């Protein structure tokens, strides 16, 4: 422009027009970039799995399994991993921009929300069989009777204990609440607490409370029932004895494991996903047992945890069928066993579980616990998150001073009012 000042000055309108047209070009560029971002180009042979395997080990195990299955089916399977708490929101966003991945691995407690929104394909219509999957685990992956999610492995909670500390104190592994209370009291010594558990304000705490609530006959549909109050009173009693740290209301399950490994707790309630970390300390001599029950002979009902592989509705039948085959391969007996041996979780498939038991007899208690375990969302489905939030607030109130009864009454009101 500076090279031809006279011409430019003679054509002011031309200059304005050029400004406008360059703006328009920029706008078109931005808009087209945005559009291509939305309407994702699907590559015919590349399939994506959205999961929460952000840990290096899990990411690697999954990548290996997907490579094997991809090879078998003649396609490329890629994984996209986001933190567990973001899987749902990410999947929802992808749904609104019509760019859903071919397979999504949801936490089983979140799957009903997505299923209810109409976002999942019935796996049976894709030819997945549930012949060798126990009923409890079929229910775990089902919503309103439809089988939407295939589990590779399941997990649950168990009582982990430090064998050396128990032997030194001459304490037997507790099996009932009374024994647990007594053992925890005897094992509490100096800076060491008898028991550690998570009562934090998130799903972790609720997950840990359910075995106490359920084994006592309580139910998430009636939070203020005497059975639930009694279960919460038991937690309060442990705290009052000094067997539980007061920090328990601020701990996640990972914190609980840290405390146990640091020798600050003789026993803990936790899950098999901690085993890898526990084994990183060879001097730690730990064992596991079923979670103690209110009365001798009662069933120990623990929560089923774990993720399920689902096929979201992408609208492309052919791709959905292939996605179903990918899920079938990832949940095959062989892949389940590999995954379970890596991750210390229990295979969902009966045959794989039997072989797994033979390979890791030390985790027998866990396998027994899984057999009787219950899904958190079986009763409430998509209504679970609201009840979970109400329950968190209730046991935190009770553990910090309020009466269990009043706290749970308030929780029940909050859960039913929908707030």
């Amino acid at each position: 422009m500076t090279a031809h000042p006279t011409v430019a000055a003679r054509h002011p309108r031309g200059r304005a027009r050029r400004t406008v047209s360059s703006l328009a070009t920029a706008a078109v560029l931005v808009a087209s970039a945005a559009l291509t971002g939305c309407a994702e180009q699907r590559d015919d042979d590349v399939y994506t799995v959205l999961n929460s395997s952000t840990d290096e080990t899990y990411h690697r195990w999954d990548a290996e399994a997907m490579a094997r299955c991809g090879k078998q089916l003649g396609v490329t399977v890629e994984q996209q991993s986001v933190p567990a708490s973001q899987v749902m929101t990410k999947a929802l966003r992808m749904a609104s921009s019509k760019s859903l991945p071919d397979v999504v691995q949801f936490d089983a407690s979140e799957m009903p929300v997505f299923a209810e929104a109409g976002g999942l394909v019935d796996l049976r219509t894709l030819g997945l069989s549930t012949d060798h999957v126990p009923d409890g685990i079929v229910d775990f992956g089902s919503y309103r009777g439809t089988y939407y999610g295939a589990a590779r492995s399941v997990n649950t909670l168990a009582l982990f204990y430090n064998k050396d500390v128990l032997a030194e104190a001459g304490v037997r592994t507790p099996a009932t609440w009374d024994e647990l209370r007594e053992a925890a009291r005897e094992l509490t010594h100096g800076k060491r607490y008898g028991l550690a558990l998570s009562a934090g304000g998130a799903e972790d705490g609720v997950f840990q409370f359910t075995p106490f609530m359920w084994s006592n006959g309580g139910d998430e549909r009636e939070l203020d029932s005497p059975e639930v109050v009694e279960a919460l009173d038991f937690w309060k009693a442990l705290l009052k004895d000094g067997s539980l740290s007061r920090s328990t209301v601020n701990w996640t399950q990972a914190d609980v494991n840290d405390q146990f490994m640091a020798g600050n707790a003789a026993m803990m309630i936790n899950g098999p996903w901690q085993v890898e970390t526990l084994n990183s300390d060879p001097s730690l001599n730990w064992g596991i047992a079923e979670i103690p029950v209110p009365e001798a002979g009662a069933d120990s009902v623990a929560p089923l945890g774990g993720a399920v592989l689902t096929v979201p509705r992408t609208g492309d039948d052919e791709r959905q069928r292939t996605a179903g085959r990918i899920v079938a391969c990832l949940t095959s007996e062989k892949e389940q066993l590999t995954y379970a041996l890596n991750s210390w979780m229990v295979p969902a498939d009966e045959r794989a579980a039997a072989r797994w038991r033979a390979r890791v007899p030390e985790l027998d208690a866990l396998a027994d616990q899984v057999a009787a375990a219950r899904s958190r969302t079986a009763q409430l489905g998509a209504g679970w998150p609201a009840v979970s939030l109400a329950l968190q607030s209730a046991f935190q109130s009770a553990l910090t001073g309020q009466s269990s009864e009043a706290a749970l009454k308030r929780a029940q009101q909050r859960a039913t009012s929908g707030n």
Partner: protein
Amino acid sequence: MTTSTVTAPPSAAAGKPAAPDPARARRRRRLAQWGFVAPAVVFMLLFFGYPLVRNVVMSFQHYTPKTFFTGEAPFNGVDNWSSVFRDALFGKALWHTLVFTAGSLLGQFCIGLALAVFFNRRFPLGGVLRSLILLPWLVPMVVSGIVWRRILDQDTGVLNAFLDTLGLGGGTPWLTSPGMALLSVILVNIWIGIPFNMVILYGGLQEIPKELYEAASLDGASAWRAFRSVTLPMLKPVITVVLVLGFMSTVKILDLILALTDGGPADATQTLGTLTYQNSFVELDFGAGAVVGNVLILISAVFAVFYLRANRTEGK
């Protein structure tokens, strides 16, 4: 550019009157001016206007996970608003937000100002110390949250161990007692906010001419009197900026509280920020989340108006 120069026929220029119509020229200039403003306006509308309007509309809709598939979000009047306002947790969260904001601002500002005044004089190692105090500012909010959670742990935390050795009683339930947790969270946020306050106020102090203090001391003013009658009035514009910006960043607090207490124990540290998060991303009730978000925007907007007012009067 070159093509237009070449294609522009010289005869056309010659054919035009020598002096162009002034009204027309002005119109063209205006058009060109608007052309330069337009990108900024488009940017603002796209990235600020749209989300804002969207959020307001969403608060009147029944917006659920299903909406992401069907795109349908039926309007439900003031249902979301009334259910949020009827929820006891909202009142609690609002109160906590106010206490948190007021407490944080007061602490950050007073300590920040004291440190700024302290570092305003020259002394050995003053510069080094000043940059050390900046450290909390460099640490991401989530990281400081996690570190402080360990420090404040009732049994294994460093702070209680330290208090214990001083004989001040070790077992303070910093984050585990509903009565204490909000205070602890405020204290951590004060720690985080001090550098910002100090740096801005220090900058303001450097601007005050030294002659004013000389004149004050000639008039026999004590140090306190000089602070009150010279420093504070001269610092007023900077103070407004610090307080308003501090308010805006404090009132919407989320990450720090999630890392420290997750809103607990027993909802003792729920603020409007955590409530929005919980409504939208845990319960997936996006309408209710939008309501709380709008309340936050409204509160911030009120203070933004104060801020603009204050700035305008300064300008005059």
